[in-house]
């Protein structure tokens, strides 16, 4: 309710006001330093490091060729359905879903909420943390969120080493500026809120699969 100019003017007044603690001097940081693991994995490929990190988080990895994506997705789903997909989806169609395919957003929220599995195309993956990057310019947000099982289709060429390779180079990933919603997904939904003991699948998917698509 306070006017923006008024709000900021109050801060401008304060920021030059009193004396600061100078006893512990601040480091000189011309650019934010990178966040780098202690042992950088130079022996193995990004694909292998990512797969290892993702598996440690509790994820399941499936390999596929460009033509075999739909089959690999079907393998991950193991006959379960209904399956939620969106328009920008992955060649996974009616045939593989056994007629239990729900198209987001056309199917509507209440129907989407009944899906058992969701299949989305990922933007990238991060080897150091085992994360998957999804963004709203490529995939509906709710497709990888509402169902208890999520399948991410990831191009091997899109795997990068560090979180910074996505965050710090965001203009390269999204030349028109960041999309509305970018999520770094790092493992299955989990909570340690009761006794710090892990419970998976609290609100988001408790079971996560990755189909790694390799053109090589």
């Amino acid at each position, binding site marked *: *309710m*306070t006017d923006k100019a008024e709000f900021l003017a109050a801060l401008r007044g304060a920021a030059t006001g009193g004396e600061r603690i100078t006893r512990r001097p601040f480091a000189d940081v011309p650019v934010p*330093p990178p966040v780098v693991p202690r042992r950088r994995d130079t022996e193995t490929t990004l694909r292998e490091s990512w797969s290892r990190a993702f598996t440690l988080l509790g994820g399941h990895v499936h390999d596929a060729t460009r033509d075999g994506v739909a089959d690999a997705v079907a393998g991950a789903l193991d006959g379960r359905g209904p399956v939620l997909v969106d328009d920008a989806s992955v060649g996974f169609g009616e045939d593989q879903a056994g007629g239990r395919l729900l198209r987001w957003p056309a199917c509507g929220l209440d129907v989407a909420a009944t899906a058992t599995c969701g299949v989305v195309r990922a933007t990238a993956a991060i080897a150091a943390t085992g994360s998957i990057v999804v963004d709203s310019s490529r995939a509906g*947000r709710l497709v990888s969120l509402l169902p208890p099982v999520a399948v991410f289709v990831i191009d091997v060429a899109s795997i990068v080493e560090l979180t910074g390779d996505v965050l710090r180079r965001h203009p390269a990933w999204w030349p028109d500026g960041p999309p509305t919603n970018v999520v770094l997904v790092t493992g299955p*939904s989990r909570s*340690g*809120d009761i006794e710090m003991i892990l419970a998976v699948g*609290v*609100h*988001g998917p408790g079971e996560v699969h990755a189909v790694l698509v390799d053109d090589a």
Partner: protein
Amino acid sequence: MTVTFLGRAERAMRDDRLRHAIANATTLMADRRLHALSRLEDPDGLRDAARALRHGAMTDLPELLDRWSSRLEELGGRVHWARDATEATTIVRDLVRAHGARVVAKGKSMASEEIHLNDVLEADGREVVETDLGEFIIQLAGETPSHIIAPAIHHDRYTVAELLTDDAGRAIEADIVAEAAYARARLRASFLGAGVGISGVNFAVADTGSICLVENEGNGRMCTSVPPVHVAIMGMERIVRDWSELDVMLGLLARSGTGQALSVYTNLITGPRRSSDADGPDELHVVVVDNGRSSILGTEFEESLHCIRCGACQNVCPVYRQVGGHAYDAVYAGPIGAVLTPLLQPERAGARELAEASTLCGACWDACPVRIPLHDLLLALRRRDAPEDAGRVRRVGFALWSWSWATRTGFVVTTQIGRIVGGVARRRAARARSGAGGRSLPGWIGAWLAGRELP
């Protein structure tokens, strides 16, 4: 509620279940933090850099907020500015009213706790559903969070089962998986039916007008994606300059909090839904809250605004680890709470004594990802308040103390007294040990001495 910190602390320390739960949780989190940081190439260098970056952000705070809010509004978001809690809650209440939302789904937000948002919305006839599992538990219990990132750590599966059983009207087993499953099913309906979703903000990125929200359960994604309106509550100091700076903060936040490399969901939100998006809220509002922060800016306490809310200082604090969060009777507990509470709410009864709730050991400083010298700040608070707060007895006491160390006469007199008293005490203690007499000295001093040897 007992009036003083010591009274509340004493009560907490008599509660074995509470102490066990807190010791268990804080020890685990502290260990995981060490492990996670040890896997970075230069964690201490990163922390020093993070401290400097936070300092830079505070120095340029008005410019960064200006740039961030202009970018966000260009993208169709609305930024609201709230000087205090009343303004902030009124803004949110009016937004919820305007959209006629009966149910509000809320993700974890310490800033909303600070402004007591739920009370205001509930008084306005709305049903506010806390959707983070820990927050849901304490909402059922009618409590406040006892830890910044693990709000229900003072509970265990048995007390949770009682709360959930009451809520469900049927027996919920004291089993963590079953409890989480019940919460998932119970809260899913709230997400789908909510007219407004409310979240906190971990970071706002000035360059792109984005807000960043980290969480593990997916409730944050739900609150910011499913309802048609998303309202985010943000402390005004949450700003970072760009995505490189964000990378540094994210690299430290989860590692310092839970020991994860990243939280399960790192949400980066840049404006409301665009025409090409399949889903997402049509409206995005961010309420920027001052609520006492500008009175800290530019003072010797400014570094308390650097805090990124990881909870590491709570996990290592020898006081917090014994008494838990509720003993502080404040929104922010532990070392950072002992600093922030008296600064943000100077008029609040009992706020100033929180600076005494510390051993000044510096463990908090050692654990802080942005290296806030919390013990320095606690000491500075004590120094600031001492002239006003000290009673006559304390004044005389400290005058004597200072006399005994600062003057030769004082030193000689007091050491002689000490020698005589020590001699008596030693003889009494020896008699007591040999079984000749009962307790050597009366009252608490006797109890204290009973387990000790004199030199």
